[in-house]
């Protein structure tokens, strides 16, 4: 076996046998993806709920087609107990209670959620007016024509898949390169390799090769999970551009790991420094929640974070139909970041931990 292949093999085996590392770099982000996918699955269809007490003619006599259309926006529960229904409204379990008394349709709502209250009032008013018009037997003077447009808004899964994937890649690449450096220095493998007839290029390319391979495995598994019908991620045409993007992102996170590994004297120090850097970076880069409402100065900070740019462009190419125009500038920026941080790391580099 060549030196390159055997070094790559040694690093890959070392990684796969490190259960903690595999858990935190692969399983844990996947668990979050599954969790977020389930939690936010019905986010866009938040229907209003009302309780119908006894018979209400305008609702009971609604033609089936209109009732079905109403059900898209409104859940109707039935009960005989008015007091209980009102109690549920007060406690916020339902948005309104409705009953019929002496030919009047009575609606009681809570003002706690003004938007919901407004929606329920509007819906019930249209039902009552529709019934009034039908009672006159006259044709309608005005008609409302509706149609659906193609939906380009970002669904939860389309947002979380690129964000969590970016975070997983950032953790994997930075932790692996930092720990390789710190452990190899501590165990004197760096010096041992210096005394073996292999060039630094061979060692570095083996490390980069293994990290890239691991990142691509992360991409494959993430996309396989997110595109399952249950989670429902729809990939757009240029989704494969995520691969070169992830490759550039991996290099930039490896450079962060190199910098921390060059500075840290022990595994614990490296671990601490990585957590302090990667977690806030993931939050500011929108890996866990949208950062559109961030104060201006925080957005400025985020502009310097490679993960922020990786997340945005991953989202563009994976689920928003983005192409080379979205990906290329980001790749260039990530490579520039890599070059600068690696140069700083090289200046800090030491052979020995003492």
């Amino acid at each position, binding site marked *: 076996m060549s*030196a390159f292949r*055997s070094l790559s093999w040694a690093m890959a085996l070392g990684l796969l046998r490190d259960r903690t590392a595999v858990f935190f770099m692969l399983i844990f982000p996947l668990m979050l993806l599954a969790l977020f996918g389930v939690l936010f699955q019905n986010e866009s269809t938040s229907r209003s709920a009302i309780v119908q007490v006894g018979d209400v003619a305008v609702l009971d006599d609604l033609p089936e087609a209109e009732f079905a259309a109403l059900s898209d926006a409104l859940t109707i529960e039935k009960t005989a107990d008015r007091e209980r229904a009102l109690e549920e409204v007060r406690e916020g379990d339902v948005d309104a209670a409705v009953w019929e008394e002496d030919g009047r349709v009575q609606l009681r709502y809570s003002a706690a959620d003004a938007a919901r209250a407004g929606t329920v009032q509007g819906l019930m008013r249209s039902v009552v007016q529709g019934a009034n018009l039908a009672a006159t037997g006259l044709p309608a003077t005005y008609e409302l024509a509706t149609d659906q447009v193609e939906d380009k808004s970002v669904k939860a899964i389309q947002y979380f898949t690129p964000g969590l994937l970016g975070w997983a890649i950032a953790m994997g690449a930075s932790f692996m390169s930092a720990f390789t450096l710190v452990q190899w220095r501590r165990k004197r493998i760096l010096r041992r390799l210096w*005394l073996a007839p292999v060039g630094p290029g061979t060692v570095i390319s083996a490390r980069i090769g293994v990290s890239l391979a691991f990142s691509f495995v992360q991409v494959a598994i993430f996309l396989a999970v997110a595109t399952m019908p249950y989670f429902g991620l729809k990939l757009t045409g240029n989704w494969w551009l995520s691969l070169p993007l992830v490759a550039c992102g991996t290099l930039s996170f490896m450079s962060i790991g190199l910098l921390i590994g060059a500075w840290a004297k022990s595994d614990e120090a490296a671990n601490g420094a990585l957590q302090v850097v990667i977690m806030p970076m993931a939050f500011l880069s929108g890996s866990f929640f949208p950062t559109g409402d961030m104060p201006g100065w925080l957005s400025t900070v985020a502009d310097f974070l490679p993960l922020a740019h990786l997340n945005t462009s991953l989202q563009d190419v994976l689920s928003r139909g983005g192409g080379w125009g979205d990906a290329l500038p980001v790749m260039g920026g990530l490579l520039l970041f890599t070059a600068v941080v690696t140069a700083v790391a090289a200046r800090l580099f030491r052979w020995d931990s003492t």
Partner: protein
Amino acid sequence: MIDNTAAIDVRGLRKRYGDVQAVDGVTFEVARGEFYGILGPNGAGKTTTLELVEGLRQPDEGSAHLLGEPSWPRSKRLLRRIGVQLQASAFFEKLTAREQIHTFAALYGASRERADAMLDTVGLTEKRDVRDDKLSGGQAQRLSIACALVHDPELVFLDEPTTGLDPQARRNLWDLLRGINSTGRTVVLTTHYMDEAELLCDRVAIMDAGRILRVGPPADLIRELGANNLEDVFLQLTGREYRE
């Protein structure tokens, strides 16, 4: 093939770290096939001297030639001819004994069969599927020596290979080291055990404070100085007890 250049030719090596003159003008020569010991207490400059000789560090002054070639700057051709054991812990993470030596074999272009044979030579065939952190101290030392020998080097450096071992494990290792030397290889050993040097080495260099105080066969040094053993020799040369 007859090659008359010395296995090691070191002249006037100096190395300073900040205020500490770690190596202060070291000169010595090791003949082909010789078993050479560098002796001294911790902090005497043994390890730095060895690192300069191996080419791990650049000397401030002086030169070191191994097998006729300068060891600094680094030369892959020379590195193929020398074997280095740094410490028993210089292993890759989470690999078994067999995977470790196969990796080192690949770095030197040695075959897997050769690696397995080497594992057998140091008596680790039964432990080949054990990970490095589960090996005993003696087993780890033997594995690291096997890794240093896997490409059949002409010159071998061993840095304190018996440190931290129990007496039985040390004796087992001595047999192994004698065997390595008897096949014609040049062996350089650093140690702070006098008895070890006395038993194994053809010649020893006694170091203290970055300098070589005396070089010679252990028996000659003992006779010249009228000492009972190397421990007394050290006491006579430095005026202090050997053990800190």
